[in-house]
């Protein structure tokens, strides 16, 4: 499991590569939480899941935990390049209701800049 983070204004872009499960999710959870505490301006979480090969309930739990925090900040959650498998587990977890799909992080940022979010 590899991931990288990038903050652009109010957006945090998290790029995931590999498999997010019981073993790999605790560290990712911690790193993600760090950004949220040190950068309270973050309102948009953009998860780039193009290269995410696998996710189960342990991985989804980490993302949902962040969503609750985003919700309190009036923020939003985006999934970039989600494959059908990931879309399906999101749908089943009920998270699809609270998240949006996008083709690229740049798309989301553009919308944010244009005040269309």
């Amino acid at each position: 499991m590899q991931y990288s983070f990038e903050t652009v204004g109010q957006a945090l872009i998290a790029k995931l590569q590999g498999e997010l499960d019981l073993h790999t999710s605790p560290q990712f959870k911690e790193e993600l939480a760090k950004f949220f505490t040190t950068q309270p301006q973050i309102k948009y979480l953009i998860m780039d899941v193009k290269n995410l090969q696998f996710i189960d309930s342990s991985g989804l739990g980490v993302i949902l935990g962040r969503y609750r925090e985003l919700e309190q900040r009036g923020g939003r959650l985006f999934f970039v390049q989600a494959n059908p498998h990931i879309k399906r587990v999101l749908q089943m977890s009920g998270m699809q209701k609270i998240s949006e799909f996008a083709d690229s992080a740049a798309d989301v940022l553009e919308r944010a800049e244009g005040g269309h979010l």
Partner: protein
Amino acid sequence: MMADTNWVKFEIPSDTRNVAFARTAVALFASQLDWTLDELEDIKVAVSEAVSNSIIHGYQLGEGVVRVEASYADRKLTIVIEDYGQGIPDVELAQETGYTTIPEERMGLGFTFMHEYMDEVLVVSEVQKGTKVILIKEVPQRSEG
């Protein structure tokens, strides 16, 4: 005619690293049957959920052994995941969507995924003895061409 059968069995220590091994090994075995890639992915998720549950809940992230057995007869795949941990007092309640004994951290979706991705899920459990989860899925009949 005799059924076409095969099986594989293995044991792993309750170590979070082994969840990936278990789901990948079972998927590799299962791929002897004629699944689509999506169906193999479904099997992986179901195994990942059951093995994760044994480690998280059965052994509370402590020591223990998880036993995995996969077999098929003709088109029907059966996977058994067993632990000798703390057990489930009410297996019906445990399988309800959103039910979890660790609400601060977890979503209570593991059993829901197993039910969604497999044809049949059977849970046999005894408190202080352990839990056995049986996952069954049959290769669908596909129309030719």
